[in-house]
C-alpha cells in the first residue's frame, strides 16, 4: 500500500500529492469484505438481494433483517459496516419524510439517490468525520400513474383546463448504487461486497439493458447470483435475503416488500440445483 507511512492517509480532508483521498479508499476496503449485495432492474420491478453472513449460531434465523424499506416504494441494501448502513437508511427515511412534508408526495428514486449521494460525499470533506463504510444499493418504483397529493380530499372541477399532457410516460423501476466517495450512478444491475466481481459478470450475462427480464425471473436470477458469488470453502454460512418492488399492477402494488417465502424457497432450490449442475460439468 503506497499510502502507508506517507501521512496522507491520516486525515479525511487531506489529498495525497497525486490527488487521492486515502480515507475514502480505506472505506471501500471495508465494503469489499462485506456480504454480497445485488440489485436487478427488471422490466416490471426491482429485486434486491443480500448474502447475509451468519456471525453466530445463536442468532435467530430469519430475524435481524438487513434490507430496509424507505417510504413505501423504495428499498435499500448495503454492504460493509452494519452500523453505517443503518445510519444511511435512517437518513434516507428522513429525506423521504421531509420530501413528503414539502411536496406532499413520495420522493422519486432519482431524487433520493441524489440527496443520499450528497450526504455521503459530505463525509469525505471534513477531518472531524470518517467516510461511510458502506456501498448502498437503492431500488425503487416511481408510480406510473398520477397519485393523489397527500391529504387530497377531492378531484376538483370535472370540467375546465387541466394542463396535463396526454400520453406522457411517467415512473417505472429505478436502481442506484452509492459508494463511500458519494459517487452514485443509475444501473440496470448493481453488485457490491465480497462477491461483486462474480456477481457483476453474472449480471452482465442477463442483458438487462434490453428490458426483457421479468420480475419473477429477476428474483430467481438474484438468488442464483448470490449463491454463485458465495464461496463455500472460504466463507461462513449465509442466509439469503430477498425483497422486491413491482409495478402498481404487479404482486407488490408498487410497494417494497419481502419476497414471499414460497417464491424465495423455490428460487433458492433452483439456485442450488444450478450450482450442482455446474459442478457436474467440471
Amino acid at each position: 500500500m503506497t499510502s502507508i507511512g506517507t501521512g496522507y492517509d491520516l486525515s479525511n480532508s487531506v489529498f495525497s500529492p497525486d490527488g487521492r483521498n486515502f480515507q475514502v479508499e480505506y472505506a471501500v476496503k471495508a465494503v469489499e469484505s462485506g456480504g454480497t449485495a445485488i440489485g436487478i432492474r427488471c422490466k416490471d420491478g426491482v429485486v434486491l438481494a443480500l448474502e447475509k453472513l451468519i456471525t453466530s449460531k445463536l442468532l435467530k434465523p430469519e430475524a435481524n433483517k438487513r434490507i430496509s424499506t424507505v417510504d413505501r416504494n423504495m428499498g435499500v441494501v448495503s454492504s460493509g459496516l452494519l452500523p453505517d448502513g443503518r445510519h444511511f437508511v435512517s437518513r434516507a427515511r428522513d429525506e423521504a419524510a421531509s420530501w413528503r412534508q414539502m411536496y406532499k408526495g413520495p420522493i422519486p428514486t432519482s431524487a433520493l439517490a441524489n440527496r443520499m449521494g450528497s450526504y455521503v460525499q459530505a463525509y469525505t470533506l471534513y477531518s472531524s468525520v470518517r467516510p461511510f463504510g458502506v456501498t448502498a444499493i437503492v431500488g425503487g418504483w416511481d408510480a406510473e400513474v398520477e397519485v393523489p397529493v397527500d391529504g387530497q380530499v377531492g378531484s376538483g372541477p370535472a370540467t375546465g383546463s387541466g394542463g396535463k399532457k396526454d400520453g406522457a410516460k411517467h415512473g417505472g423501476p429505478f436502481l442506484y448504487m452509492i459508494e463511500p466517495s458519494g459517487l452514485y450512478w443509475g444501473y440496470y444491475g448493481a453488485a457490491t461486497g465480497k462477491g461483486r466481481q462474480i456477481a457483476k459478470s453474472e449480471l452482465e450475462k442477463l442483458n438487462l439493458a434490453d428490458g426483457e427480464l421479468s420480475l419473477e425471473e429477476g428474483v430467481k436470477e438474484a438468488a442464483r447470483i448470490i449463491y454463485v458469488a458465495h464461496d463455500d470453502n472460504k466463507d461462513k454460512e449465509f442466509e439469503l435475503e430477498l425483497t422486491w418492488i413491482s409495478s402498481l399492477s404487479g404482486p407488490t402494488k408498487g410497494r417494497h416488500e419481502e419476497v414471499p417465502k414460497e417464491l424465495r424457497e423455490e428460487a433458492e432450490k433452483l439456485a442450488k440445483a444450478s450450482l450442482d449442475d455446474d459442478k457436474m460439468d467440471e
Partner: protein
Amino acid sequence: MNHLPQAWGRPRDEVYGAYDHSHLQTSGPTQHTQQPIVTGTSVIAAKFKDGVVIAADNLASYGSLARFTDVKRLRKFNSEVVVGFGGDVSDMQYLDRLLNSLDIQENYSSSEDSLNAKNLHTYLAKVMYKRRSEFNPLWNHLLIAGLDADAKPFLASADLLGTTFSAPTLATGFGSALAQPILRRTLPDEEAVAGVDKEAAVKLIKECMKVLFYRDARSLDKYSIAIITKDGVELKENEKLENQSWAFAETIRGYGTQVN
C-alpha cells in the same frame, strides 16, 4: 343546543350566556385556531355482527355556503381501519398526512402486526388531547371504525377536546341529534350487534343518510360509505341517495314563504 362545528367545545350559551368574544384577541403575538373555516357535517357509523359500516357525505361547507361538493371525508388507514372526519377540512388534511406518515413508519418493520382500529383510536385521541392542551385544537370530531386485536368490530369517537366515547352506533355533528335516535332503534346496546347483519346495517345507515339530507341544511345527497369486515375495507366514495324526493314538500303548509 347548537350542533354546528363553530360551537363545538364552547360553553353553552343557555347555561353561561353568550360567549364574550372580546376575550378572543384580534391582534397579538400568537393566534391559534379559534373557529373552523371549511367544515364537513355529520359522520355516522354502526356496528354489525361481522364489522362496521361508516358513512359521511361529500360536502365541505364554507359557513352556510356549499363550497366543495366532492370532498372525501372517509379515510382508509389500512385493510382494517377507516377514519371518518367531521368538522374542519384543513385539520382533516393535517390528520390524514399524519396518519400517512404513521403508516409509512409502521411499514419499516415488516414482521409485526399492523395497527388495528383500537390502536389508532388511542393514538388519535391522544393527538386531539395534546392539541387541545396547547389551546390549539384540531377542530374535528372523528369516528374510528374497524376491527380490534381480536378481529371484533370496533367503533369509537374522539373529539376536538380529546374526549373519547364508544357505542354500537355513533354520529357526529347534527347527526348526533338526527341519526343517533334512528340508529339506536335497531342497535340499542352491544347485545343487539350480534343480531344485525351487513345488509341490515348498510340499509340502516343509508336510511339515516337520507334523513340527514332532508333535515340538515349543510348536507349533500352524494356521500361515501365504507364497510369494514375481516375481508377488508369496501369503500365507495361516489354514492347517491336512493329513492330521495322533495315531492312531499309541495304539500307542506304552515311555514316558509307560501301565502296560503
